[in-house]
């Protein structure tokens, strides 16, 4: 191990991805944007829900130092098996980072975005961060650059950010009230002093807001990340959403707190609860009235490589890169062809109408459905799904809500994964756990499902459905919704007839 690392400052999670297409059916979350901004984000997986299915991103871990402490972060972390913001395995120098980016860009032509997101705060490492951007803008002008920050040093670096043509910045803003901030940030390092509590939080908040305004005044796109911490900032985030929208942020990404004792963070060790999926969704919906919400974030590592939701970092460790021979001039030609063909496909898709809820009686209640999907279609075997995509069908149409991770319980040994595996010492079988993950959903759509999970799902009040294998997800969800509508179970009067 070269340079042990550490975790980061802000949860610098970037966009998320699913192996499916139609994440987000609700009228495109970015449709309110003027054309020139839409053009900027259409190939950015962390900003455009649609793009994250086709375009990849990478982070280079050149920024280890941080200037604040967040209670959800442990600066000691160095783990290759964990996927969460702030965790990296290999810290890079700017020169190594350039080599890695060129190698990845040549190998994965759909990689359009390079971000610096830690593992500390990129702007607390200005020399390493801007040296990397400087070299990249010269050597790989076809790669978009972006940076994530906690905002403390943002105002003093805004001009430098503009100079390097970085047109996407993510600021982690968890609060606008210093009293709440003091519960999230125990200290900051500011003007040569460690400043604790409310005083420190107040400075951080002022700097974040000032930086946000300065960036938007210069036409730089700003996304705001917030960590939802139950009991600390959950209600407060609605106000945060309103304020950052007023100041010109174009997208708000509310992410759940990740806190496990083994992470060694304050919230982990103090056993602070993470939000449930329902709590997260409720807050995202509450904020959605004020601005575009991002729901496809996968809270990736500070050295992630690939499509959101996947990590190909292992293919590009420094020892492997050292022996790769990259002809970037040739790679750029191929990259352009790939990008053009994806954009063409996306534009064609934009013209395609979303499935309509015609025939659904007004006043019908919305229904949540879980989908084992891949590449936009209902494609996965129930027992093989690594995650379920949660969709809501309502009289307004179908919209993507979130993704929920599962644990594989079917090893694919037999034909159909009927078996249920109980890990040694586990109090709950993996199948039971996966069924719990689907709480709140009434239907689960998959390509195939075994006999045992079928029975357990039905017993849990979730209807398994394998009738729509290989159909586009949104159409399948709408078709099932219509089937339920026919039974009359969507109208309030029918509630009493509902059988558990």
């Amino acid at each position, binding site marked *: 191990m070269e*340079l*042990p690392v550490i975790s980061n400052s802000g949860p610098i999670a970037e966009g998320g991805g699913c192996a499916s297409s139609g994440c987000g059916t609700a009228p495109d979350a970015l449709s309110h944007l003027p054309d020139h901004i839409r053009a900027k984000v259409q190939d950015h997986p962390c900003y455009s829900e649609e793009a994250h299915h086709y375009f990849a991103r990478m982070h280079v871990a050149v920024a*280890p130092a941080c*200037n604040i*402490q967040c209670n959800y972060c442990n600066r000691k972390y160095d783990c290759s098996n964990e996927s969460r913001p702030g965790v990296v395995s290999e*810290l890079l120098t700017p020169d190594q980072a350039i080599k890695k980016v060129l190698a990845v860009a040549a190998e994965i032509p759909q990689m359009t975005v390079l971000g610096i997101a830690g593992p500390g705060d990129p702007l*607390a490492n200005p020399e390493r961060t801007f040296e990397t951007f400087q070299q990249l803008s010269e050597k790989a002008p076809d790669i978009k650059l972006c940076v994530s920050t906690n905002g403390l040093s943002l105002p003093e670096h805004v001009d430098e950010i503009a100079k390097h043509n970085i047109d996407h910045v993510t600021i982690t803003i968890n609060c606008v009230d210093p009293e709440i901030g003091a519960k999230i940030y125990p200290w900051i390092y500011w003007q040569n*002093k460690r400043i604790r509590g409310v005083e420190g939080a107040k400075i951080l908040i002022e700097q974040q807001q000032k930086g946000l305004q300065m960036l938007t005044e210069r036409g730089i796109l700003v996304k705001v990340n917030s960590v939802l911490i139950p009991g600390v900032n959950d209600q407060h985030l609605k106000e945060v959403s309103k304020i950052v929208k007023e100041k010109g942020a174009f997208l708000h990404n509310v992410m759940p707190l990740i806190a496990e004792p083994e992470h060694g963070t304050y919230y982990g060790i103090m056993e602070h609860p993470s939000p449930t999926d329902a709590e997260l969704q409720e807050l995202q919906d509450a904020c959605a009235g004020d601005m575009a919400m991002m729901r496809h974030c996968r809270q990736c590592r500070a050295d992630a490589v690939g499509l959101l939701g996947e990590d190909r970092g292992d293919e590009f460790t420094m020892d492997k890169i050292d022996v790769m021979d990259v002809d970037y001039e040739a790679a750029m030609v191929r990259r352009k062809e790939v990008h053009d063909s994806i954009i063409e496909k996306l534009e064609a898709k934009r013209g395609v109408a979303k499935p309509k809820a015609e025939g659904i009686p007004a006043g019908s209640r919305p229904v949540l459905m879980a989908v084992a999907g891949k590449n936009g279609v209902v494609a996965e075997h129930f027992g093989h799904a690594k995650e379920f995509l949660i969709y809501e069908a309502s009289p307004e149409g179908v919209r993507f809500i979130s993704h929920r991770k599962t644990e594989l319980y079917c090893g694919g040994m037999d034909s159909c994964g009927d078996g249920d595996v109980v890990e040694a010492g586990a109090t709950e079988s993996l199948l039971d756990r996966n069924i719990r993950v689907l709480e709140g959903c009434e239907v689960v759509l998959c390509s195939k499902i075994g006999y045992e999970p079928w029975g357990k799902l039905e017993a849990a009040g979730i209807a398994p459905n394998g009738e729509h294998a290989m159909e586009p997800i949104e159409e399948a969800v709408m078709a099932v919704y219509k089937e339920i509508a026919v039974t009359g179970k969507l109208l309030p009067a029918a509630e009493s007839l509902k059988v558990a």
Partner: protein
Amino acid sequence: MALQITESCVNCWACVDVCPNDAIFQDKPHFLIDDMKCTECLGDHAEAQCAAICPIEMAIVNELGEFLNPPGSLTGIPIEKLKEFGLWREAA
């Protein structure tokens, strides 16, 4: 007089960038302070800069071996919890 870095250091570079004397250098398994260059920031700053930015408790000690950031002082995690998780040491 000079400060020292202990094995708790995670090599995050934060102190290197803020040291007014360029006294901190990279080494294995962790960064070290050149005791010929370190002034404990006397005359430059009210607080020793490495200790003011260091995010890791117990990573910086003075000549007496005392922690500049003792256990619990940066994270606010109570001592008994630190002991439970093996994150507590008496002195360097």
